[in-house]
């Protein structure tokens, strides 16, 4: 995802001289270095000082610049939250926040480095667009949409080598959900890179005779309720899947959407249940330990609906 993000940012910077790259001592790898080399006067490292980076981005945006602030998601969101709220969102300023290592993707460093409440915290901020791409190609589409949207955007990025799950040439439209697998028994709705585990869970369930539809939602705010309600129409069993607390994230969004629309369906929310993550290791290890790998998701769905 990071390569896609930096590649897209470079394309945007080529196209528009107002595009800036701000970091708070983040940014690793060849593409990051290449951006700095190609656009030295548009790259600013504000040091380990997220609040200042976010507020300075707001100041830059008041003068017509388009800053993309790239840094670790938990520090960007939690430490600089009031700066995002007051300095960016209150003015609807054109700042793009790129939260890297979101969810559990910095698996080895534990909960201080995980962002498992960022969607909940940010989605209540007026005017802030929230994008949660699932794959590298979808990151490209989200970066383009973020640039084209004149207002604040947060993009929730993983930092592992996330698999590409969409076919080449797939017509990405982040504002519309994607159907990855069709099924008639339950409808699984996923956001972010955990989509690969959701698809894996659907395959496990299929072996047990349960055909699951798998839908990916990458734009969490504004949430395209009409699109999702149309796609889940007829399902009585709905599952939300996210690398996030079950409160306030995708699960919360769906609960509100279903209630607002007066739809009676059983919603089972999979994620972290009022807890921080447990364990250390590779992403696959920590997902397993927290019940968020394909096996864990399939097991929870069977327990919820079939046992």
């Amino acid at each position, binding site marked *: 995802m990071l390569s896609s993000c930096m590649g897209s940012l470079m394309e945007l910077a080529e196209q528009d001289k107002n595009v800036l790259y701000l970091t708070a001592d983040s940014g690793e790898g060849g593409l990051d270095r290449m951006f700095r080399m190609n656009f030295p006067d548009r790259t600013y490292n504000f040091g380990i000082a997220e609040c200042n980076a976010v507020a300075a981005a707001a100041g830059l945006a*008041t003068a017509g610049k388009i800053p993309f602030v790239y840094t670790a998601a938990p520090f960007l969101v939690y430490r600089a939250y009031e700066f995002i709220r007051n300095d960016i969102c209150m003015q609807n300023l054109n700042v793009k926040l790129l939260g890297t290592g979101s969810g559990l993707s910095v698996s080895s460093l534990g909960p201080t480095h995980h962002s498992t409440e960022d969607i909940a915290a940010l989605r209540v901020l007026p005017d802030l667009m929230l994008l949660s791409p699932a794959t590298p190609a979808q990151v490209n589409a989200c970066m383009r949409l973020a640039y084209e949207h004149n207002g604040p955007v947060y993009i929730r990025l993983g930092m592992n080598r996330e698999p590409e799950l969409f076919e080449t040439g797939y017509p990405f439209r982040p504002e519309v959900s994607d159907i990855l697998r069709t099924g008639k028994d339950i409808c699984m709705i996923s956001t972010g890179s955990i989509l690969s585990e959701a698809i894996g869970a659907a395959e496990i369930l299929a072996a047990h005779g349960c055909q699951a539809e798998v839908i990916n939602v990458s734009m969490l705010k504004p949430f395209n309720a009409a699109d999702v309600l149309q796609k889940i129409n007829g399902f009585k069993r709905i599952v939300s899947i996210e690398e996030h607390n079950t409160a306030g994230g995708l699960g919360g969004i769906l609960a509100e959407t279903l209630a607002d629309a007066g739809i009676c369906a059983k919603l089972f929310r999979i994620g972290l249940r009022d807890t921080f993550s447990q364990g250390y290791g590779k992403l696959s290890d920590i997902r397993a330990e927290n019940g968020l790998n394909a096996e864990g998701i399939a097991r929870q769905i069977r327990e919820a609906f079939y046992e």
Partner: protein
Amino acid sequence: MSQHDLEECMELRKQIFITGYKGGMAHLASCFSALEILYTLYLKNGMRYDPEDPDLPSRDRFVLSKGHAALALYAVLCRAGYLTEEEYGRYLKPGSRIGGEPYMRDLKGIEATTGSLGHGLSMAVGMALAQKMDGTGAKTYVLLGDGECQEGSIWEAAMSASSLGLANLTAILDCNGLQKTNRVDETLKVVAWTEKWKAFGWDVMETDGHDPDAIKECLDKRRNTSAPGILIAHTVKGKGVSIMENNPMWHFKLPNKKELKIFKEELHITDEELV
């Protein structure tokens, strides 16, 4: 201080008090502390701006980081032509365009939304950086409180401004020695503003914060420097009303009936003007 500036600032104090009193709430002491600084920037050729073209890219910008002195900012913005006397007088009344803290969406001329302390210098860093990138020669000014410098983000911004070589950025420290509940140097005791700002790579000057000529002279000296600069303006919180001066009790308070008599006497306000 010239007789003209003296009279203008007396008139502004009077207007600020009447408006705040009628509105039912204001940080009067902070307004009176910062008044001559704001007056110098907006009304004594401290800055380049045009209320007829408030979005002019090459304008100088001002950020009131200590947002609670908003009523004083509105008073000089009113004189500068950004809002009418009638609009100013409607402060905090139904349909008012201006509130207790500056909000960018309320009024052209308010360059940053402030109120939560410790934000303004960072936003000013972004503005000054954009001006530097665009090469227009425009400048950014920001007014900080000395109590506000207890916020850690101020020092994040201070480090970034000097690292980025923002010579077009000037901060003015409204150094009145008081915060909401106590003296600043009795709350967090190591103050040493000159040494601190110098250590963070800033040019430091000191002046009487109630003397517009002295403030202007310092601002003019900023024109040939390579580093961000800070003007430590020694001020008196509540300046102009004897019972309010240097007393933290007045941070966020309007006078009672007995105190009002003193305000009226010292600011030359009539009963009719308070109706």
